């Protein structure tokens, strides 16, 4: 089942790539995807596949907003002579469990300016994030910010 979903995704990607969403092209993409999955089969571990389209859309909008907002903040900092940063490496305990969840979360964290996933604890329970703006030195607030703003929403979408 999982593989089937994967295969479908690959077919769609093929469609996007070729820019032709004709049925034949999608079937071709599906076939190619099948072949590739056959050859790469062992590489792909367990991987959930969700189609929560509305959730995803909402999250995307939220994320975009985060992205722009954070970027502007950094921009201001970069362009102005004084550094306003209060950086630090913060340990964020994770609720995310699966590989996909953790990875998605980490990447999304990284993608927003001002935060950067540096490492994951060996037991996969803590994500260490480098943050540029720990306002007022409140580490806990920063930690909470990540958990509330991003992790919760990500898990909502993914679970």
């Amino acid at each position: 089942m999982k593989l089937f979903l994967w295969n479908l995704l690959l077919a769609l990607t093929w469609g996007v790539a070729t820019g032709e969403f004709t049925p034949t092209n999608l079937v071709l993409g599906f076939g190619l995807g099948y072949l590739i999955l056959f050859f790469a089969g062992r590489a792909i571990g367990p991987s959930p596949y969700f189609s929560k389209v509305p959730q995803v859309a909402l999250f995307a909008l939220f994320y975009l907003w985060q992205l722009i907002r954070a970027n502007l903040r950094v921009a201001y900092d970069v362009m102005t002579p004084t550094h306003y940063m209060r950086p630090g490496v913060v340990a964020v305990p994770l609720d995310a469990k699966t590989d996909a969840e953790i990875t998605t979360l980490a990447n999304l964290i990284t993608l927003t300016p001002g935060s950067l996933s540096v490492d994951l604890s060996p037991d996969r329970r803590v994500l260490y994030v480098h943050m540029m703006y720990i306002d007022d030195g409140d580490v806990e607030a920063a930690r909470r910010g990540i958990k509330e703003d991003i992790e919760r929403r990500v898990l909502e979408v993914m679970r």
Partner: protein
Amino acid sequence: MSSLILRTATRFMLPLLLLFSVFLLFRGHNEPGGGFAGGLVAASAFALYALAFGVPSARQSLRVDPRSLIGTGLLAAVGSGLLSLVLGKPFLAHRDLWTIVTLPGFGTLHLGTPLVFDAGVYLVVLGVTLTIILPLAEEQQ
């Protein structure tokens, strides 16, 4: 590298890159791409896998010895040219070895020996790059 994040992403990237590589191969005759670019992308995919998971896993996921890809690719490339030689034309004369297949709902497909040739190139490039990179990475690990 032991980063779970990289590994998980790599699991996703591998098929994506491979698909993209095949895409490059097939459209190469009409749009930018082709056997070289395709083969290099495919090789990059496995190189990434080898960096993330180690060479043995990469070899496992490849399933075939990259060296045999080289031989196969060479034979495919030569073979595509031999056909015309057998038909009494000069070597590598692709120009009359085309069929235009019309598929309902898709349009027309131009199929010819150059595709076989380019696929041979793809295989050789893939095989070669991996034959080079995997042992080197192995040496480091």
